[in-house]
């Protein structure tokens, strides 16, 4: 957290929310394979709470549907998901934690055939390379997730729970 006491980004820009996904003709047809697409990935992560503000990542424009790329080859094939996220300010110390919450949400919900990469939108953060490297290191992610204190943080909890005070945790380095 900020050493100045108080929020880092006092007056963030708030964006609107996308509506519900429009239904298509094959949605209820079990014979048509339902591959993952960008909208579905976005739907999984848009409600993640920001660690500092009582807003979702979508409302802060940290994640957007156009920044989610999916290549799903279906059962038996190997696909990949790449999500770029944009911290609200270039020195945001929560960026690493936000990236972790996105990565965790996807790891918990997507099938093993989809390899997940979560990265900072190029040019939007001062420690972009260091944060990307940490997010890509599954051993660090696994060790962080084993820490129950980390999982108490609002961005890593379910959307309906109220935010609590956050603290820097040495188990996940806040770059």
């Amino acid at each position, binding site marked *: 957290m900020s050493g100045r006491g108080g929020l880092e980004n006092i007056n963030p820009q708030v964006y609107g929310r996308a509506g519900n996904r429009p239904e298509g003709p094959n949605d209820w047809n079990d014979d048509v394979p339902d591959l993952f697409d960008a909208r579905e990935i976005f739907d999984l992560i848009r409600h993640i709470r920001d660690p500092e503000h009582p807003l979702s990542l979508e409302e802060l424009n940290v994640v957007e549907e156009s920044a989610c790329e999916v290549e799903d080859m279906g059962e038996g094939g*190997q696909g990949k998901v790449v999500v770029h996220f944009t911290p609200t300010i270039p020195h945001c110390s929560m960026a690493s934690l936000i990236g972790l919450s996105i990565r965790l949400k996807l790891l918990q919900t997507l099938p*093993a055939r989809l*390899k997940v990469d979560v990265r900072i939108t190029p040019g939007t953060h001062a420690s972009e390379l260091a944060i990307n490297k940490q997010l890509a*290191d*599954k*051993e660090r992610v696994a*060790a962080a997730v*084993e820490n129950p204190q980390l999982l108490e943080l609002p961005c890593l909890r379910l959307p309906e729970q109220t935010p609590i005070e956050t603290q820097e945790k*040495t188990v996940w380095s806040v770059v």
Partner: protein
Amino acid sequence: MTTALQTLTGHKDRVWNVSWNPQGTILTTCGTDHSIRIWAKEGDTWTSKNVMSDAHSRTVRCVAWSPCGNTLASASFDATVNIWDCKTADIECVATLEGHDNEVKCVSWSASGSLLATCSRDKSVWVWEVGEDDEYECLAVMPSHTQDVKKVTFHPSLDILASASYDNSIKLYKESNDDWSVFCTLNGHESTVWSIAFDGSGQRLASCSDDRTVKIWQEYQPGNNEGIATPNNEPAWKCVCTLSGFHNRAIYDIAWCRLTGAIATSCGDDVIHVFKEQPQADKNAPMFDLILTIPQAHTDDVNSVSWNPTVAGLLASGSDDCTVKLWDFTHIF
């Protein structure tokens, strides 16, 4: 298309490490479910012989057998290393090595069995002396890396240690005047070095990295014919080969077979590759051929591979898909 000899199920979460005992009769696996599992052959099939369910309070990251085959060491995210007496079927924890600040990533025994090395996310490598009566004394704490140390491994015959790190480098350590210190740093990888393996002679080291390449490093002794400089009269190590373009994601483990010279790699793209050096290759510019690829060896990242030390061509692999597989590659040698 090669299929596995056998798939061993039982682990309830990802398998991080697979390791054979020196006799090649026991396979030991460990993972996120806090357990260590012991597998042995009964007739023609490998079966679970022992499940140490709460071997640690967190993920068990690595297990290693002492050269005598009686003692097992296990490294865990709970920041400790446990020493298990396996002389009888009644396995007992006889010592716990504490000291690391956070997750211990790897443990390795020296060839003589008198030293043990451990490494951690706390950036340090520790060397322990194995004493009588299960007494382990810490000989050195070396915070030489600038980031997490992912793996440590001892030289196959000498008391020389190598470590691989998140800081993209590999360091080599030895003892002089009762002091352990770094005598060489190998730079070249462009991202985290996940694992390293010496060949049978100890004059070559293979490394694998998040940068999706494998590098082969060659040792040059002082006074070498090639004219390689050896500062401080210490051996120098140079990268003599880089294998790139074969792996699509981070390479998590590499194993160099002492019997056949084959190198196996396990990758985040679920594939196992086997490489072998071309015969009559120039020692200073060796060429390695890909002799076998197993696509979808597992249904998720393959975290660990290990060659059986006594049965040529027998490979074990452990994966995020919670299974362990045994492969018979004798037909390619």
